[in-house]
């Protein structure tokens, strides 16, 4: 894409200093940074809970947790990672990059942007309180439902569930507001000449994701509101004794929960669509089909939710529909992966850290998708259901599919954000330690599941001891490897080799026409895209 961008920017860098700069911020870059810092903090908190889970499962028998606390930690691990880490990290990158990539001076609604972010710490506090409250006198029982919050268990749990419900409400409000902002920015704020089909795929990915969020987050908000009413106001939405149906909650939850997977993955796919062409030094193969495939994934992803519920006793016709729909999703996903591989084909490829993570994502996410197809098949799923195979499957989907994509994006744009190149040698060490330990942690869990080890259980039979030991030791290394990531990021922020405007030789797009780091106010004069 060639531009006749007027890259002149006014010299003023007027912005508030100290805490006011962050608390009152309406600047997309500052709010993006806040999102990223928040996500990183929650990522380490979620990681800590994962370490506790794996340490407990190091040997058979109870080690240092009791079953209720184990279930509480398990629930919080999922909620913190999904709502606290991955979603805000994606939103942070979107905030930073979308205005720069479409030539907009800022997000369309900067004050709404501030509100979207500052709801998050309040939500996080509620989430953490839901974990802590049971330890106080009168705090009730611990949350032992897992992130799915199925009734009747979630109706019986103590007051910590109310904190969790309000945390989900706040997180939902934040997500919907951020999504509205992203859609409005993309629709109304593009630079002259930047048509929708000239827009970078990363922006398209967020455009689709934002619509998905607006369509499904209110559904889970409705679901947990009904749960709240069942708990405190005598309704019987999910109470069979009162004429309700507990399975209804499962439908509402998964109507949100399944698209949520694509909400986590699509922004990462969008990032890869920027990274892979840059390091293959070729334009993206199949721009239109990649965008089309994302739209198909979003559409199909919304109508196959009950494949998470094969065992509830649906009719044969219903489970068949959900099976076929689910398997169909592998076609657009496969198309995107094909486009990525075709982009690499005969490209002048180099493997800097963003490309390493991108390649790992293509390979390992395909593997996670493959076990997904296995799980979509009804008779097989009835065997795998609620086993460690499912745990292995969704970690193979979400770690490479979402987190590796985010790592690729962070390493790709870190020079743009900070103005410094990161330490490539350390970053490569981080990649290899992370990737190998990730595989050792989760690959063996497939075998554990196939051999019959149930998920969400604190103790296990001694026949599962060896693989659990491997998984726990590797998991500990995997967790600790992220300290190296933290060090690399801090080192990069503090200094290092100066990054050029265009930090990567093969990178294309408007963001690379701005200085690194970009001025506080960028694209005050809109670029003209040819």
């Amino acid at each position, binding site marked *: 894409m060639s531009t006749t961008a007027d890259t002149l920017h006014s010299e003023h860098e007027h912005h508030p200093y100290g805490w006011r700069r962050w608390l009152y911020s309406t600047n997309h870059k500052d709010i993006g940074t806040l999102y990223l810092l928040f996500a990183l903090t929650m990522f380490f908190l979620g990681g800590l809970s994962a370490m506790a889970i794996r340490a407990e499962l190091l040997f058979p028998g109870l080690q240092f947790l009791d079953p209720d606390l184990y279930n509480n930690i398990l629930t919080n691990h999922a909620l913190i990672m999904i709502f606290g880490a991955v979603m805000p990290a994606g939103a942070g990158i979107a905030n930073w990059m979308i205005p720069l990539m479409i030539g907009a001076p800022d997000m369309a609604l900067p004050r709404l942007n501030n509100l979207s972010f500052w709801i998050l710490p309040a939500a996080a506090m509620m989430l953490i309180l839901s974990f802590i409250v049971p330890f106080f006198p009168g705090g009730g029982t611990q949350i032992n439902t897992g992130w799915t919050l199925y009734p009747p268990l979630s109706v019986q749990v103590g007051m910590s569930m109310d904190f969790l419900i309000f945390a989900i409400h706040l997180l939902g409000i934040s997500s919907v507001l951020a999504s509205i902002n992203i859609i409005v920015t993309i629709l109304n704020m593009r630079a002259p000449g930047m048509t929708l089909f000239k827009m970078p795929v990363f922006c398209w990915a967020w455009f689709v994701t934002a619509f998905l969020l607006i369509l499904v987050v209110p559904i889970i908000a409705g679901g947990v509101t009904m749960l709240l009413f069942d708990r405190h106001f005598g309704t019987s939405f999910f109470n069979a004794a009162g004429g309700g149906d507990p399975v209804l909650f499962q439908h509402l939850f998964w109507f949100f929960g399944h698209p949520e997977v694509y909400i986590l993955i699509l922004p990462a796919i969008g990032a890869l669509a920027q990274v892979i062409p840059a390091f293959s030094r070729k334009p993206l193969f199949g721009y239109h089909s990649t965008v089309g495939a994302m739209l198909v994934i979003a559409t199909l992803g919304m109508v196959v939710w009950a494949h998470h519920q094969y065992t509830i006793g649906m*009719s044969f016709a219903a489970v068949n529909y959900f099976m076929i729909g689910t398997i169909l999703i592998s076609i657009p996903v496969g198309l995107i992966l094909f486009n990525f591989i075709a982009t690499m084909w005969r490209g002048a490829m180099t493997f800097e850290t963003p490309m390493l993570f991108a390649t790992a994502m293509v390979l390992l996410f395909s593997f996670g998708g493959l076990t997904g197809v296995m799980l979509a098949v009804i008779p097989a799923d009835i065997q795998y259901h609620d086993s460690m195979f499912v745990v292995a499957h969704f970690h193979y989907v979400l770690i490479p599919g979402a987190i590796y994509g985010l790592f690729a994006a962070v390493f790709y744009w870190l020079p743009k954000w900070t103005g410094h190149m990161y330490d490539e040698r350390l970053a490569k060490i981080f990649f290899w330690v992370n990737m190998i330990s990730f595989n050792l942690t989760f690959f063996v869990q497939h075998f554990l599941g196939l051999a019959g080890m149930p998920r969400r259980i604190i103790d296990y039979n001694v026949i599962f001891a060896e693989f659990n030991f491997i998984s726990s030791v590797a998991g500990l290394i995997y967790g600790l490897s992220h300290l190296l990531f933290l060090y690399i990021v801090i080192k990069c922020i503090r200094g290092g080799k100066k990054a050029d405007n265009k930090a990567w030789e093969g990178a294309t797009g408007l963001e690379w026409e701005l200085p690194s780091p970009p001025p506080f106010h960028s694209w005050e004069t809109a670029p003209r895209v040819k």
Partner: protein
Amino acid sequence: MATPPVDDATRRRNRRTALLLGAFAIVVFFSSVPFWKNLIQTALNAAR
């Protein structure tokens, strides 16, 4: 200054689009309670 200037027409268009999307989200939220409950329960009853 906190945000770079945006012309009034764009500002109005932004506000209109945001309100439309916000109203849509609220409709989805409220529709989830009676609508999905009835729809899914009808489907479940039919499946039984």
